[in-house]
């Protein structure tokens, strides 16, 4: 299975998706709204990206991108999906119903970036306390007590 | 058959338990196999590995000279801002101003003993010491001045 096949598969239902092959793996860039559709597409046969091995988020100061690293345990093909999320109202559909591992990872991202995952069954702070204010991994986060500027 | 299975099960279980007991019993009757060290008692004979990273030291030779040029490479290499190099300007015999070390401040309480400073030092002025007994009653004593009072840079170190 080559990148071309995946491209073809994705660009059919999602014509606005862009592809980037400069990195190690094929990267698909989409908007947050399209993510759930793409995720379902990728998970289902015959490509069966059944293994979400990394889920994270990057703060680009103007917007967030949530980054999903997917692979298939039978085809061993890895791809990266980057979904662009609005920074002022960060929300994206959850995929914890497709990949259970996303449950914890999404909670972590919610905790540290403040991205809300729609329809997540149990979206609470995972690492920080419930009454913590701010999202530490955002670039504009300031903690005058614990952060030392070098 | 049920009874036979039942009995063989018990026999197997007993045997497996006995194997374990034999092993612990084996060590029980052999006090020579004890591996623990009597730490404060063996302090004199305790030899740490040469490369053991216990603390950052600055070796001085018999003339009270060190090799630090005050280039602050270690300060830049340190991930935790453990090292603060304070420099001053000294006059060389040719009456030129030359940067030299004034104080080498080392915060042992912030040091993670990663050894990056030693790796970065171009003149080999600092080394990792083998001392590991760092406990003190007052944290402020962990801020150390590594260059000895009145020490000078060794001749020929650039």
């Amino acid at each position, binding site marked *: 299975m080559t990148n071309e096949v995946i491209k073809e598969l994705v660009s059919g239902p999602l014509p606005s998706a862009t592809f980037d092959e400069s990195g190690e793996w094929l990267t698909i860039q989409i908007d947050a709204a399209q993510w759930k559709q793409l995720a379902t597409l990728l998970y289902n046969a015959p490509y069966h990206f059944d293994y979400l091995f990394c889920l994270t988020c990057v703060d680009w100061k103007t917007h967030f991108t949530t980054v999903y690293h997917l692979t298939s345990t039978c085809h061993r093909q890895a791809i990266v999906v980057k979904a662009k999320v609005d920074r002022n109202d960060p929300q994206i559909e959850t995929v914890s119903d497709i990949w259970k591992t996303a449950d914890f990872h999404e909670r972590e991202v919610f905790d540290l970036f403040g991205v809300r995952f729609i329809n997540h069954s149990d979206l609470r702070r995972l690492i920080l306390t419930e009454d913590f204010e701010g999202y530490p991994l955002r670039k504009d986060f300031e903690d005058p007590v614990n952060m030392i500027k070098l | 058959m049920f009874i036979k299975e039942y009995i063989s099960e*018990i026999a197997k279980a007993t045997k497996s*338990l006995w194997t*374990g*007991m034999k*092993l*612990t*019993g084996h*060590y*029980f009757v052999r*006090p020579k*196999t*004890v*591996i*623990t060290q*009597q730490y404060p008692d063996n302090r004199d004979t305790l030899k740490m590995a040469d490369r053991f990273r216990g603390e950052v030291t600055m070796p001085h030779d018999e003339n009270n000279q060190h090799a630090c040029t005050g280039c602050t490479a270690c300060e830049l290499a340190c991930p935790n801002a453990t090292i603060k190099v304070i420099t001053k300007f000294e006059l060389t015999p040719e009456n030129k101003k030359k940067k030299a070390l004034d104080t080498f401040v080392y915060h042992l309480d912030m040091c993670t003993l990663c050894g990056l400073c030693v790796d970065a030092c171009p003149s080999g002025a600092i080394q990792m010491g083998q001392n590991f007994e760092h406990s003190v009653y007052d944290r402020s004593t962990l801020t150390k001045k590594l260059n000895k009072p009145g020490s000078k840079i060794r001749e020929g170190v650039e």
Partner: protein
Amino acid sequence: MYSLHAITNSVQNWLNARLSSTWVLIIESLIVIVLAIALFAALGLILVWLERKVAAHMQIRLGPNRLGPAGIFQTSADTLKLILKEGLTPDGADKFLFNFAPFVVMIVAMLLLAPIAFANGFQIWNINIGVLYISAISSLSVIGILIAGWASNNKYSLLGAMRSGAQIVSYELSAGLSILTIVVLTGSLQMTDIVQAQQNGWWIFKGHIPVIIAFIIFIIAATAETNRAPFDLAEAESELTAGFHTEYSGMKFALFFLAEYINIFIVCAIGATLFLGGWMPFHMGNWTQFNHVMDFIPSSIWFFGKTFFLIFLIMWFRWTFPRLRVDQLLNLEWKYLLPVSLFNLLLVTLIAIMNWHF
């Protein structure tokens, strides 16, 4: 040759000659109280030290070695530390029961001393139903644990107490049945009779394999009844932190801790009496010379030697095996030990009736 029996007799005669019978009784009671407390304190100190040493040597380390030679004063120092600790009662606890529980446990442990024959003729109460008495009293200790677990108002304690209840109650059956095998062979419930019956050989040697099986079952049940690993589910520190005594601190904790060790001593003493001949020296058939040498060793040494051997065995278990799960624990009793010991009892009965034992 001196013996404890002679000493007690002379003391009694000396007292009788000088005082009225009431005063003799009071003074004797005082002596018993002092001796019992001294025994408790000494056993606590020695057994804890011994346990730590045994554990250490099995775990290829030295164990306590700083305080006194081979660290024998370590436990004294620990006791001192526990005395100096504050005995806390949690706010939510049932205050009366919480403070009452250590007393129950201690009283039970103390009462069990009564019928034990420490040496030839050295016994607090030569009760004619000694074995039954022990069965009856020892089952009371679970009440102390249940009270402690319940009164603490702590979930770990409660779960620990519940487990302990099920466990002690279950294992009492097979302990009782293996004790019964000896009763069947001896035909008496009195401790002294049982010891006397082993004059020409200990039951474990004369009773063929069934008695050995009974002995093994007794040791297993004794380990379980004293809440020792691998049956320490009531405390199971990796599951329930400290089980039923989670909330206890200071001397109240020390009493539970002590009671555990005293109970070990007592069950091992009973085991030694029933199966290993109590204070009876080791005799070999017709080797008169050898038997004389054995007789020369004081009976109290024999008794304590055998008891400590069994204690060592139980410690050996503890430092070798992982803990059982709670349902496996009950399975072991109800599916293996109980049927086996019932069957074993029948075998022993047959042996006893046919006089097949030596």
